[in-house]
Protein backbone atom coordinates (compact mmCIF):
# COMPACT_ATOMS: atom_id res chain seq x y z
CA UNK A 1 0.00 0.00 0.00
CA UNK A 2 2.81 2.37 0.99
CA UNK A 3 4.57 1.45 -2.22
CA UNK A 4 1.43 2.20 -4.25
CA UNK A 5 1.06 5.64 -2.66
CA UNK A 6 4.68 6.36 -3.33
CA UNK A 7 4.16 5.60 -7.04
CA UNK A 8 1.09 7.86 -7.18
CA UNK A 9 3.05 10.67 -5.60
CA UNK A 10 5.85 10.11 -8.12
CA UNK A 11 3.37 10.27 -11.03
CA UNK A 12 1.95 13.54 -9.75
CA UNK A 13 5.43 14.86 -9.29
CA UNK A 14 6.35 13.81 -12.84
CA UNK A 15 3.58 15.86 -14.44
CA UNK A 16 4.48 19.07 -12.67
CA UNK A 17 5.06 21.83 -15.31
CA UNK A 18 8.84 21.96 -14.83
CA UNK A 19 9.14 18.18 -15.10
CA UNK A 20 6.99 18.10 -18.25
CA UNK A 21 9.22 20.65 -19.98
CA UNK A 22 12.28 18.64 -19.02
CA UNK A 23 10.62 15.40 -20.16
CA UNK A 24 9.80 16.93 -23.54
CA UNK A 25 13.39 18.03 -23.96
CA UNK A 26 14.53 14.48 -23.12
CA UNK A 27 12.27 13.10 -25.85
CA UNK A 28 13.61 15.60 -28.40
CA UNK A 29 17.18 14.65 -27.56
CA UNK A 30 16.42 10.93 -27.86
CA UNK A 31 14.63 11.40 -31.20
CA UNK A 32 17.37 13.61 -32.62
CA UNK A 33 19.95 10.93 -31.84
CA UNK A 34 17.95 8.13 -33.51
CA UNK A 35 18.69 6.73 -36.95
CA UNK A 36 16.07 6.70 -39.70
CA UNK A 37 15.49 2.96 -39.15
CA UNK A 38 14.92 3.52 -35.40
CA UNK A 39 12.50 6.39 -36.09
CA UNK A 40 10.58 4.25 -38.60
CA UNK A 41 10.32 1.43 -36.06
CA UNK A 42 9.06 3.86 -33.40
CA UNK A 43 6.55 5.26 -35.87
CA UNK A 44 5.30 1.76 -36.70
CA UNK A 45 4.96 1.10 -32.96
CA UNK A 46 2.86 4.26 -32.51
CA UNK A 47 0.71 3.24 -35.51
CA UNK A 48 0.03 -0.10 -33.83
CA UNK A 49 -0.86 1.66 -30.54
CA UNK A 50 -3.31 3.96 -32.36
CA UNK A 51 -4.75 1.03 -34.29
CA UNK A 52 -5.35 -0.82 -31.04
CA UNK A 53 -7.07 2.30 -29.65
CA UNK A 54 -9.32 2.48 -32.71
CA UNK A 55 -10.28 -1.15 -32.09
CA UNK A 56 -11.58 -0.03 -28.70
CA UNK A 57 -8.73 -1.40 -26.62
CA UNK A 58 -7.88 2.03 -25.15
CA UNK A 59 -4.49 3.22 -24.02
CA UNK A 60 -4.22 0.99 -20.91
CA UNK A 61 -1.31 -0.63 -22.59
CA UNK A 62 1.38 -1.54 -20.02
CA UNK A 63 4.22 -1.56 -22.55
CA UNK A 64 3.15 1.88 -23.88
CA UNK A 65 3.14 3.27 -20.34
CA UNK A 66 6.61 1.81 -19.70
CA UNK A 67 7.97 3.17 -22.97
CA UNK A 68 6.55 6.66 -22.47
CA UNK A 69 7.82 6.71 -18.85
CA UNK A 70 11.33 5.80 -19.99
CA UNK A 71 11.32 8.28 -22.87
CA UNK A 72 10.05 11.28 -20.93
CA UNK A 73 11.37 10.75 -17.40
CA UNK A 74 13.81 7.85 -17.59
CA UNK A 75 11.44 5.86 -15.35
CA UNK A 76 9.35 3.04 -16.88
CA UNK A 77 7.09 2.83 -13.79
CA UNK A 78 6.08 6.49 -13.62
CA UNK A 79 2.81 6.09 -15.55
CA UNK A 80 1.80 2.74 -14.12
CA UNK A 81 -0.97 4.32 -12.02
CA UNK A 82 -1.68 7.44 -14.08
CA UNK A 83 -5.06 8.22 -15.62
CA UNK A 84 -5.66 7.74 -19.35
CA UNK A 85 -5.62 11.51 -20.01
CA UNK A 86 -2.05 11.78 -18.66
CA UNK A 87 -0.89 8.91 -20.90
CA UNK A 88 -2.76 10.39 -23.88
CA UNK A 89 -1.18 13.84 -23.40
CA UNK A 90 2.28 12.31 -23.37
CA UNK A 91 1.51 10.05 -26.31
CA UNK A 92 0.26 12.96 -28.42
CA UNK A 93 3.31 15.01 -27.53
CA UNK A 94 5.63 12.11 -28.36
CA UNK A 95 3.82 11.36 -31.67
CA UNK A 96 4.08 14.98 -32.75
CA UNK A 97 7.80 15.13 -32.00
CA UNK A 98 8.41 11.72 -33.56
CA UNK A 99 6.63 12.75 -36.79
CA UNK A 100 8.63 15.95 -36.99
CA UNK A 101 11.94 14.10 -36.48
CA UNK A 102 10.94 11.36 -38.91
CA UNK A 103 9.90 13.75 -41.72
CA UNK A 104 13.09 15.76 -41.28
CA UNK A 105 15.23 12.58 -41.45
CA UNK A 106 13.32 11.29 -44.49
CA UNK A 107 13.86 14.64 -46.28
CA UNK A 108 17.60 14.26 -45.76
CA UNK A 109 17.53 10.69 -47.13
CA UNK A 110 14.80 11.00 -49.76
CA UNK A 111 16.87 9.97 -52.77
CA UNK A 112 18.47 7.03 -50.91
CA UNK A 113 15.01 5.79 -49.90
CA UNK A 114 13.67 6.06 -53.45
CA UNK A 115 16.80 4.20 -54.56
CA UNK A 116 15.81 1.26 -52.35
CA UNK A 117 12.47 0.74 -54.13
CA UNK A 118 12.34 -1.58 -57.13
CA UNK A 119 10.69 -0.47 -60.38
CA UNK A 120 7.41 -2.31 -59.66
CA UNK A 121 7.14 -0.53 -56.32
CA UNK A 122 8.00 2.83 -57.88
CA UNK A 123 5.33 2.44 -60.56
CA UNK A 124 2.79 1.53 -57.86
CA UNK A 125 3.86 4.66 -55.98
CA UNK A 126 2.76 6.74 -58.97
CA UNK A 127 -0.85 5.85 -58.16
CA UNK A 128 -0.56 7.67 -54.82
CA UNK A 129 1.23 10.82 -55.91
CA UNK A 130 0.14 13.52 -58.34
CA UNK A 131 2.52 14.75 -61.05
CA UNK A 132 4.23 17.81 -59.55
CA UNK A 133 4.82 21.04 -61.49
CA UNK A 134 8.54 20.33 -61.90
CA UNK A 135 7.90 16.69 -62.90
CA UNK A 136 5.36 17.86 -65.50
CA UNK A 137 7.84 20.34 -66.95
CA UNK A 138 10.69 17.84 -67.06
CA UNK A 139 8.71 14.79 -68.23
CA UNK A 140 5.69 16.08 -70.15
CA UNK A 141 4.72 12.72 -71.75
CA UNK A 142 4.90 10.75 -68.48
CA UNK A 143 3.10 13.43 -66.46
CA UNK A 144 0.24 13.70 -68.94
CA UNK A 145 -0.64 9.98 -68.90
CA UNK A 146 0.15 9.74 -65.16
CA UNK A 147 -2.42 12.49 -64.49
CA UNK A 148 -5.04 10.62 -66.52
CA UNK A 149 -4.37 7.40 -64.62
CA UNK A 150 -4.75 9.18 -61.26
CA UNK A 151 -8.03 10.67 -62.45
CA UNK A 152 -9.26 7.29 -63.68
CA UNK A 153 -8.28 5.74 -60.36
CA UNK A 154 -10.22 8.41 -58.48
CA UNK A 155 -13.47 7.79 -60.39
CA UNK A 156 -13.16 4.00 -60.40
CA UNK A 157 -15.26 3.28 -57.32
CA UNK A 158 -18.43 5.08 -58.32
CA UNK A 159 -20.33 4.35 -61.55
CA UNK A 160 -21.72 7.90 -61.93
CA UNK A 161 -18.28 9.52 -61.56
CA UNK A 162 -16.89 6.91 -63.95
CA UNK A 163 -19.62 7.68 -66.50
CA UNK A 164 -19.13 11.47 -66.22
CA UNK A 165 -15.38 11.20 -66.60
CA UNK A 166 -15.56 8.85 -69.60
CA UNK A 167 -18.31 10.90 -71.28
CA UNK A 168 -16.04 13.91 -71.18
CA UNK A 169 -12.94 11.91 -72.13
CA UNK A 170 -14.58 10.32 -75.19
CA UNK A 171 -16.82 13.25 -76.13
CA UNK A 172 -15.49 13.18 -79.69
CA UNK A 173 -16.09 9.45 -80.12
CA UNK A 174 -19.82 9.14 -80.81
CA UNK A 175 -19.78 5.32 -80.67
CA UNK A 176 -18.15 5.10 -77.22
CA UNK A 177 -20.24 8.05 -75.99
CA UNK A 178 -23.39 6.11 -76.91
CA UNK A 179 -22.30 3.06 -74.87
CA UNK A 180 -21.00 5.11 -71.96
CA UNK A 181 -24.56 6.35 -71.49
CA UNK A 182 -25.92 2.82 -71.81
CA UNK A 183 -25.75 0.02 -69.24
CA UNK A 184 -23.44 0.01 -66.21
CA UNK A 185 -21.68 -3.05 -67.71
CA UNK A 186 -20.83 -1.08 -70.87
CA UNK A 187 -19.47 1.83 -68.85
CA UNK A 188 -17.38 -0.55 -66.71
CA UNK A 189 -16.02 -2.30 -69.80
CA UNK A 190 -14.97 1.01 -71.39
CA UNK A 191 -13.43 2.08 -68.08
CA UNK A 192 -11.48 -1.17 -67.74
CA UNK A 193 -10.13 -0.90 -71.30
CA UNK A 194 -9.26 2.78 -70.90
CA UNK A 195 -7.26 2.03 -67.73
CA UNK A 196 -5.47 -0.78 -69.59
CA UNK A 197 -4.62 1.55 -72.48
CA UNK A 198 -3.37 4.30 -70.15
CA UNK A 199 -1.25 1.81 -68.17
CA UNK A 200 0.35 0.70 -71.41
CA UNK A 201 0.93 4.31 -72.44
CA UNK A 202 2.55 5.03 -69.05
CA UNK A 203 4.81 1.99 -69.40
CA UNK A 204 5.80 3.14 -72.89
CA UNK A 205 6.52 6.69 -71.69
CA UNK A 206 8.84 5.23 -69.03
CA UNK A 207 10.96 3.28 -71.51
CA UNK A 208 14.12 3.96 -73.45
CA UNK A 209 15.49 2.32 -76.60
CA UNK A 210 18.67 0.26 -76.37
CA UNK A 211 20.73 -1.57 -78.99
CA UNK A 212 20.79 -5.33 -78.41
CA UNK A 213 22.19 -7.91 -80.86
CA UNK A 214 22.13 -5.26 -83.60
CA UNK A 215 18.45 -4.69 -82.90
CA UNK A 216 16.69 -1.88 -81.11
CA UNK A 217 14.85 -2.88 -77.97
CA UNK A 218 12.55 -0.90 -75.69
CA UNK A 219 13.32 -1.32 -71.98
CA UNK A 220 12.20 0.40 -68.78
CA UNK A 221 14.33 3.47 -68.07
CA UNK A 222 14.82 3.01 -64.31
CA UNK A 223 16.76 6.27 -63.91
CA UNK A 224 13.97 8.22 -65.58
CA UNK A 225 11.36 6.47 -63.43
CA UNK A 226 13.31 7.13 -60.21
CA UNK A 227 13.89 10.78 -61.12
CA UNK A 228 10.24 11.26 -62.06
CA UNK A 229 9.01 9.77 -58.75
CA UNK A 230 11.52 11.92 -56.82
CA UNK A 231 10.29 15.09 -58.58
CA UNK A 232 6.66 14.19 -57.85
CA UNK A 233 7.32 13.53 -54.16
CA UNK A 234 9.44 16.64 -53.66
CA UNK A 235 6.82 18.79 -55.30
CA UNK A 236 3.83 17.21 -53.56
CA UNK A 237 1.32 19.29 -51.63
CA UNK A 238 2.70 20.16 -48.17
CA UNK A 239 -0.40 18.69 -46.51
CA UNK A 240 0.07 15.23 -48.01
CA UNK A 241 3.87 15.23 -48.03
CA UNK A 242 4.22 13.80 -44.48
CA UNK A 243 1.98 10.84 -45.43
CA UNK A 244 3.89 10.26 -48.67
CA UNK A 245 7.22 10.45 -46.85
CA UNK A 246 6.14 8.00 -44.18
CA UNK A 247 4.68 5.61 -46.74
CA UNK A 248 7.90 5.81 -48.74
CA UNK A 249 10.09 5.12 -45.69
CA UNK A 250 7.90 2.22 -44.54
CA UNK A 251 8.06 0.67 -48.03
CA UNK A 252 11.73 1.32 -48.68
CA UNK A 253 12.92 0.06 -45.31
CA UNK A 254 10.76 -3.04 -45.29
CA UNK A 255 12.04 -3.91 -48.79
CA UNK A 256 15.68 -3.48 -47.83
CA UNK A 257 15.46 -6.01 -44.98
Amino acid at each position, binding site marked *: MANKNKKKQEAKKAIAPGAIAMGQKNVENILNAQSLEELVNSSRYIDSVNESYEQGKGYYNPSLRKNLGSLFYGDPTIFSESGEDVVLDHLENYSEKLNKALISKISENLEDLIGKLDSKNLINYLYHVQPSKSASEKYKDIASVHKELIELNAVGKDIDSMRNYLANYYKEDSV*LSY*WINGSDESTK*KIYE*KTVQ*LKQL*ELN*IALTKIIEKDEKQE*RVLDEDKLRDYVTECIKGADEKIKPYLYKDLAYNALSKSK
Partner: protein
Amino acid sequence: MLFQKVNKMTISEKTEKQNEIYEIKTQIGILNQMISQVQNSCYIPEAKKQLVSEYICEIENLRKQIV
Protein backbone atom coordinates in the same frame (compact mmCIF):
# COMPACT_ATOMS: atom_id res chain seq x y z
CA MET B 1 -24.74 -21.70 -78.68
CA LEU B 2 -27.04 -19.11 -77.16
CA PHE B 3 -28.94 -18.65 -80.46
CA GLN B 4 -29.62 -22.40 -80.70
CA LYS B 5 -30.94 -22.60 -77.15
CA VAL B 6 -33.25 -19.58 -77.48
CA ASN B 7 -35.73 -21.46 -79.80
CA LYS B 8 -36.71 -24.00 -77.09
CA MET B 9 -37.28 -21.45 -74.28
CA THR B 10 -40.26 -19.75 -72.62
CA ILE B 11 -40.88 -16.05 -73.36
CA SER B 12 -39.23 -14.80 -70.14
CA GLU B 13 -36.26 -17.11 -70.65
CA LYS B 14 -36.01 -15.86 -74.23
CA THR B 15 -36.04 -12.22 -73.10
CA GLU B 16 -33.33 -12.96 -70.55
CA LYS B 17 -31.16 -14.73 -73.13
CA GLN B 18 -31.76 -12.05 -75.73
CA ASN B 19 -30.61 -9.44 -73.21
CA GLU B 20 -27.55 -11.57 -72.57
CA ILE B 21 -26.84 -11.75 -76.32
CA TYR B 22 -27.37 -8.00 -76.64
CA GLU B 23 -24.90 -7.40 -73.77
CA ILE B 24 -22.26 -9.63 -75.40
CA LYS B 25 -22.75 -7.86 -78.74
CA THR B 26 -22.33 -4.54 -76.99
CA GLN B 27 -19.08 -5.76 -75.39
CA ILE B 28 -17.85 -6.81 -78.84
CA GLY B 29 -18.79 -3.38 -80.23
CA ILE B 30 -16.94 -1.66 -77.39
CA LEU B 31 -13.84 -3.76 -78.00
CA ASN B 32 -13.94 -2.95 -81.73
CA GLN B 33 -14.21 0.73 -80.93
CA MET B 34 -11.38 0.48 -78.38
CA ILE B 35 -9.23 -1.02 -81.12
CA SER B 36 -9.77 2.23 -83.07
CA GLN B 37 -8.79 4.20 -79.95
CA VAL B 38 -5.59 2.15 -79.59
CA GLN B 39 -4.80 2.63 -83.30
CA ASN B 40 -5.20 6.39 -82.92
CA SER B 41 -3.56 7.04 -79.55
CA CYS B 42 -0.87 4.41 -79.03
CA TYR B 43 2.26 5.48 -80.88
CA ILE B 44 4.50 2.45 -80.34
CA PRO B 45 3.84 -0.24 -83.00
CA GLU B 46 4.74 -3.25 -80.82
CA ALA B 47 2.56 -2.02 -77.94
CA LYS B 48 -0.30 -1.28 -80.35
CA LYS B 49 0.02 -4.79 -81.80
CA GLN B 50 0.02 -6.39 -78.33
CA LEU B 51 -3.12 -4.61 -77.17
CA VAL B 52 -5.00 -5.06 -80.45
CA SER B 53 -4.31 -8.82 -80.57
CA GLU B 54 -5.44 -9.06 -76.92
CA TYR B 55 -8.73 -7.31 -77.82
CA ILE B 56 -9.22 -9.49 -80.92
CA CYS B 57 -8.75 -12.60 -78.81
CA GLU B 58 -11.33 -11.27 -76.32
CA ILE B 59 -13.76 -10.57 -79.20
CA GLU B 60 -13.29 -14.13 -80.50
CA ASN B 61 -14.09 -15.58 -77.06
CA LEU B 62 -17.22 -13.43 -76.79
CA ARG B 63 -18.34 -14.47 -80.29
CA LYS B 64 -18.02 -18.15 -79.35
CA GLN B 65 -20.58 -17.56 -76.59
CA ILE B 66 -23.30 -16.45 -79.01
CA VAL B 67 -22.68 -18.53 -82.14
